[in-house]
């Protein structure tokens, strides 16, 4: 198992590298650069050149990537040693102006649009908040989704099944863009129970992401958690139901019943555990998607999370920001998938990797 984990971690390095390079290159291929315009006003070429030189955008792409990955000093060191390498003339001219210490040393770079701010700062401030919203929503989704799906499967084709299926379909079909404003309208504007928007916690957080769970925090967190968690709980309920229906028809369940085991033991210990395997499969990527991509919910509720950076950084052509948040997302995804694989082995002893 350990060998498997280590092998997976080692394999993830080239995957992450390739992905980083792809995003890095793709962003630069899209027409329009971060410094071509101030608002809708085209900037004089000399001004643009000043800005581009500072961020090494005048270097060949591979050298830009080298600087991003390894740091300006390494790019400069290579070129000073071997100035004949193509592109080194540009590097030698301005590598000392730059500020990149390199991804390999944990530096995600400097934002091109938010002057004077590093991507590490931006991600460091927004990610814990997205994580809080994501964990709460996933928690809510699991608490509603698994029991609802289980009930629906065990009472198949009864009113309970139809009702839970109805709510699951409603939950799946109402997008956050509709549900969010609806919740605000009912619970904030009409009933005045909750604040309209914003997030009720700010750094420093315990362990980097756990907020003080006071009244203010919960008041602010309730509506966005419901908005985001409802659709997730619907997906989980549907999947749990389908999976459990399949499992309870398996031979070993019949055997368990034939042996005279109590029904709740059969369902909980034998059926439910196995039926959770497909649920767990989607849980990893789903959690990461929720944590990093809950843009709509964060947008509607004015939550300063990381989701918006995916969108705005593309429009702004803020190359380091979009590359940085993608690297963070990809790393989390790799870790989440690894955790899911480990959970598999625990859920189903037949699955072993070494």
């Amino acid at each position, binding site marked *: 198992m350990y060998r498997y984990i280590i092998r997976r971690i080692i394999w993830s390095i080239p995957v992450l590298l390739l992905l980083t390079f792809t995003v890095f290159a793709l962003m630069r291929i899209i027409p*329009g650069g971060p410094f071509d315009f101030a608002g809708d006003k085209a900037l004089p070429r000399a001004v643009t050149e000043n800005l581009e030189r500072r961020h090494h955008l005048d270097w060949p792409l591979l050298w830009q990537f080298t600087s991003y990955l390894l740091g300006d000093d390494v790019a400069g060191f290579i070129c000073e040693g071997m100035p004949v390498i193509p592109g080194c003339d540009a590097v030698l001219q301005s590598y000392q102006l730059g500020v990149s210490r390199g991804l390999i040393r944990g530096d995600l770079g400097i934002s091109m649009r938010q002057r004077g701010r590093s991507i590490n700062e931006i991600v460091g401030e927004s990610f814990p908040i997205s994580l809080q919203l994501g964990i709460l929503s996933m928690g809510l989704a699991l608490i509603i989704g698994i029991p609802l799906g289980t009930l629906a499967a065990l009472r198949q084709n009864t009113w309970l099944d139809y009702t839970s299926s109805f709510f699951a379909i409603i939950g799946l079909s109402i997008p956050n863009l509709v549900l969010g404003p609806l919740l605000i309208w009912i619970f904030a504007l009409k009933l005045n*129970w909750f604040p309209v928007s914003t997030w009720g916690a700010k750094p420093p957080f315990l362990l980097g992401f756990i907020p003080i769970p006071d009244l203010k925090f919960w008041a602010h967190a309730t509506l966005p958690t419901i908005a985001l968690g409802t659709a997730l709980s619907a997906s989980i309920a549907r999947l749990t139901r389908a999976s459990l229906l399949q499992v309870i028809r398996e031979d070993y369940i019949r055997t368990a019943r034939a042996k005279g085991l109590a029904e709740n033991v059969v369902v909980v210990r034998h059926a439910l555990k196995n039926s959770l395997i497909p649920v767990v499969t989607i849980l990893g990527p789903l959690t990461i998607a929720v944590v990093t991509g809950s843009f709509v919910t964060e947008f509607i509720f004015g939550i300063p999370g990381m989701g918006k950076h995916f969108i705005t950084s593309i429009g702004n052509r803020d190359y380091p920001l979009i590359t940085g948040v993608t690297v963070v997302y990809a790393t989390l995804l790799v870790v989440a998938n690894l955790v899911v694989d480990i959970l598999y082995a625990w859920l189903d002893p037949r699955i072993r990797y070494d």
Partner: protein
Amino acid sequence: MYPRYRIWLWFSLLALVTLVAGACVAPQTTAPPAEAPAQEAPAAPADEEIVLDTVFGTEPPTLDPALATDSQSIWSIRQMFVGLTGFDEQAQVVPSLATEWSASEDGLVWTYTMRDDVHWVRLNPDTGEFEDLGPVTAHDVEYGVKRTLDPNTASDYAYVLYIIQGAEEFNTADPNAENFEELRDAVGVRAIDDTTVEFTLTAPAGYFPSITGLWVTFPQPQEAIEANPDGWADAGSIVTNGPYTLAQWDHGAYIRLVKNPLWVDADNVQIEAIQGPIIESASTAMAMYEANEIDMMADPGWPPPLPDMDRIKADPELSQQLFIAPRLCTYYYGFVNTKPPFDNPLVRKAFAAAIDRKSLINNLTKGEERPAHSFAPPGVFGNVADDMSIGGWMVQDDYAAQLAQAQEWLAEAGYPEGAGINVTLMHNTSEAHAQIAQAIQAMWAEAFPQATVTIENQEWQVYLKTLVPDAPDEEKPEIYRLGWCADYPDQNNWVNEVFNSKSGQNYAKYNNPEFDAVVEQAARESDPAVRQELYKEAERLLIDQDTAISPIYYYTYVRLYKPWLTKVVISPVTGDPVAEWEIDWEAKKAARGQ
């Protein structure tokens, strides 16, 4: 514990946490939290402080005057910093740090005399102490202008200072060049003494006092900047010289500005803090406004959302809070003058005339905008918005007559009923621009039944790349939409900086040497009456004779203010001077149930 039971333990724990959460939330049902902002500032109790609650529409990319380019940043900067000149409610240049200024006879040397009682201040957000860092001097102005121009600062807006002698040479120099320091010294800005600063220009520019009201010319605190070059504009480090200063900036989340007690006119500043979260959704901001969580739907956040406008106008309370004021921006359709059939001025005139601007405003934009018939809007020095002899044919009361004239022009150009015309109208991706484009497409289809106008849209940065003058013509649309807003309220910023054939903003590729000569002469002229006449001629050439573009409407500010904002002074140029506003604090507290 046997491992397989662990998952159930985790589920039980999760359920318990949620139950506790639910229990915590329950009391909320009886205690509306509307009055509490998400992040309270560390200062005195909020209810004892007169606070303007607002939202910020986006995270300001910077609060450094040398680097700001967007309206969010500039709005906040203008609350915290003052420059040599300012602008009043009529967009006229007024004294600010400078008490008076004069130009040499040849108009090349401008001398400003500054007041000596405005001080730099730094707030320690932890202790709440304001540190007096001494008076703002002419040396700070010189340093500020040179810092903005320094290529190492990499200011996007440095080019607006190119009228200053040596500015362009310094800004475009290689920082590694041997003569770099000489170039810095050669920039035509010089502190004669602590209260006198002198600018030497490359050409006499009658509009120069407007330039010294721009944020990029503001004095800058050298010591603070050199001590912390990248982070000096953050809370705790920032040194300011205006009525407010920065107390808190939780990036991406919350901003709070507080009154500067050392400000020369501090006794007359009633509002002690401006604060609010960063909310990127106009609809959410509107909900906060209706829940009395914020006091306005205006800069620095959002105007009321367009879909809410009908409801606002119909609502007896909200309609009373609606406020519409002129804004120095024009929405226009440009014609790429080098692309057939729009290389023919008659075709351009016909298309410009076949737009029912009043109907568009009444049915679509709904912000009481004013139909436009010239490029510069009212309020800009040298505008002809009230002179119907220029472009009046595109905003006639009788649209039927205007339409008949348009059809006649197109037939005269050789395209009766639009036969043989197959063109593209392009706009950047936005619901509002799409709706306007569709409406105008329908107007053109009705006016010229045989013409085909196809609408295309592109993402903003791609769109601008498509339009820049040096992009290939075959990739350009024949018609494009854009808007232009004043950096400073003078026609030089409009007709000259946009449609001079040498301008990088001249997306219409308009090229008329006579027009260039007129706008360049106006830029050098110092007699206001002569400049006025020259700009009238420029607009006549641009709109009447050549119709390089079709102005659609002059923008308005559409805003909502709570009734307890008792004195709201609007400045069309500077962002609104909150220091001059007042709040009926008791009324605000009462409305919030405090």
